[in-house]
């Protein structure tokens, strides 16, 4: 009788271990949010918070989310404000989401505007992070006016390998100069779209934050 008892317990344990071991996350997503903190864009952080809340509500256990700022030298780990690989356990994932939200809120309360806008450096950092997550669907969300303003001596005009990453420009604000000549705005957006698509990436522009579900399409 002991044998039956032990064999039942053992089989149950083996099945659970096998399920935990043989199973693997499928179609995981990783999202890297880049926020422009230059003088012209730093007032838009409330919108960033709204999108991050949407992301936290949408992303599932096993998926990843990171928030980084675009400043004068964005190709750096120190610009990553928060990053989280959500645990496979739902309860842990929920706790991580709360912690992430706290980090975002505290960052939002103390934004220091940067002098320059190194978008390319931020994107390179984002691609590096996203490749490390090994997620099947990778997204870079850029909150910026898309006007790159780099320090003298920085080299940023080279092709980037996006490796299938979806790059989504959200809430691309119009500059004063765009009102003088609206073609500038369109040229800026088109230039980034071209750069992304030439680098084997996918480009999307979402200015209406009520249509965020279109992000995953």
């Amino acid at each position, binding site marked *: *009788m002991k044998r*039956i*008892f032990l064999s*039942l317990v053992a089989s*149950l344990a083996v*099945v*659970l271990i096998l*399920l*935990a071991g*043989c*199973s*693997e*996350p*499928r179609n*995981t997503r990783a999202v890297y949010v880049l926020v422009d903190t230059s003088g012209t864009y730093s007032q838009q952080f409330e919108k960033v918070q709204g999108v991050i*809340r*949407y992301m*936290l*509500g949408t992303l*599932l*256990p*096993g*998926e990843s989310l990171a928030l980084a700022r675009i400043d004068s030298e964005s190709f750096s780990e120190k610009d990553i404000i928060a990053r989280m690989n959500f645990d*496979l*356990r*739902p*309860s842990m*994932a*929920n706790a991580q*989401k*709360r912690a992430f*939200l706290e980090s975002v809120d505290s960052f939002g309360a103390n934004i220091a505007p940067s002098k320059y806008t190194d978008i390319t450096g931020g994107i390179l950092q984002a691609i590096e992070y996203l490749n490390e997550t090994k997620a099947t669907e990778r997204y870079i969300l850029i909150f910026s006016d898309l006007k790159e303003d780099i320090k003298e001596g920085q080299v940023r005009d080279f092709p980037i390998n996006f490796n299938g990453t979806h790059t989504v420009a959200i809430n691309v604000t119009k500059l004063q100069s765009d009102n003088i000549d609206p073609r500038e705005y369109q040229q800026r957006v088109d230039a980034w779209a071209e750069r992304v698509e030439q680098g084997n990436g996918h480009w999307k522009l979402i200015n209406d934050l009520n249509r965020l579900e279109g992000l995953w399409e």
Partner: protein
Amino acid sequence: MTFEFWTRLIDGQPALSLLLWVSGLIVVMYVARQPVHQIILSLVRSVRNALRLMAQSVMLAEKQLRNRNREVLLAQGQEHAERAIEREFQRVEAQVNRDLSGYPSLQRDLKEQITRIDEDYTQSGEVPPKPPEWLKAIEAVAEIPDNGSSVVGKILSDIHNTLKKSLQKSIQEYRRANRERHTLLKKMMPYWRSLTSNLNTVEKKITGLEQRAAVIDNQMQSYDDIRQQTDFSERLLSSSSMTQFFISGVALCLALVGMYVNFQLVALPMGEMVGASSYLGSSSIRASDVAALFIISVEVILGLFLMESVGVTRLFPIINLLDDHKRKAIFWIMLTFLFIFAGIEASLAYMRDMLAADSKALSQVLSGAEVVEPALSWIPSVAQMAMGFTLPFVLAFVAIPLEAFIYSFRTVSGLMGVWLLHIIAVLIRFIGNVTYGVGRIIINAYDLVIFIPLKFERSFKEKIIVKNESVEDPVELNDETHASKELIADEDDLKEKTK
């Protein structure tokens, strides 16, 4: 070959050309009538024979399946009847042990009561008072003539007084004895009542046993019918099997609903153990769903073994063959496991509620709303826990309809198979007959095309008959070929066989 080819035999005369071709064809057909008839006939005959053979094979298979069904049905019915009789005997044994185990003491009580009643009865017997011995002497003295003597008169008077006193005393004694008898008889009353009550109890018990014996008689009768393999018992078992099939099917469907509810209780919290976003390999099956299904399956299996060890079901002969001690041990092990799993499920159900509440709170935080604890939120938590605890025990009873379904499915599927084979055989025979009919139609159509030469042939034969009227051996007037005759003979043969 276009239509023009046929019309160009004679230049400028298409109709005549066609007529010539048709005439030629009719002549050829007339000449080839006999072999063509034979070819068509042999073709349809071979098709029909092949189909007949096929139908026979199918019917043979149907017969074998029917016999196998009958054997299975009767064997199952026999086993079922044996079990029912065995159960009935077990009940009788229990009743005998319960009711008649006290029979010796009851008998002793009855004997004692009867002895007491007997003693009381003996004591209450009426003994007529004997006449005093000196009565004769007194009679003799009383007959002495007094002759006027006062002494004698006094003596007689004294005797008379003494006698009177003695009689009075005797009467008093008699009355006292009667009183005592009545007292004794009065004392017998409770014994009589007790005796009556005891006998009534015995009667009730005996009646209960008689009823059980009547039930056993009925079951033995049906068992005997099954053993004798009567058609009545087969029909009875067959209809019973169909009923069982549908009832157990409905019960299993309800059990599936219960399993689904159970699954919903367990699947979400299982994500905490095996990962909520983990899938099996490259499939779209969640690992947590599989783990939840596994737990539910284990509960069902535990229930199967539990019912098996109690003897309610007999799906595993090995368990049935084990001695009672081992079966009891299996029962307790399975029950312990069920309790453990019920506890696990209750805690998982509670965890599910917690996770759902946590997710809801997080959504509220993310949407910027204030987190509000819903009123009486403990009620669904407790309800889920209670369901999680009870459902494994409910699922344990799935074993009963499952057994009935498996056993009845054997016979029902057999019956279905028999019906299917019968339909196939009928269809094959129908196709064979249709083919034969088509052959006949083709032969008749062939004759219709060449009806002109046939008519001539008939007229020619009639003329020969007229010429040979004087001859004794007349020529048979018949325009049917040998094949046509065979066809008709075949049809008659088929009709006879069908009859």
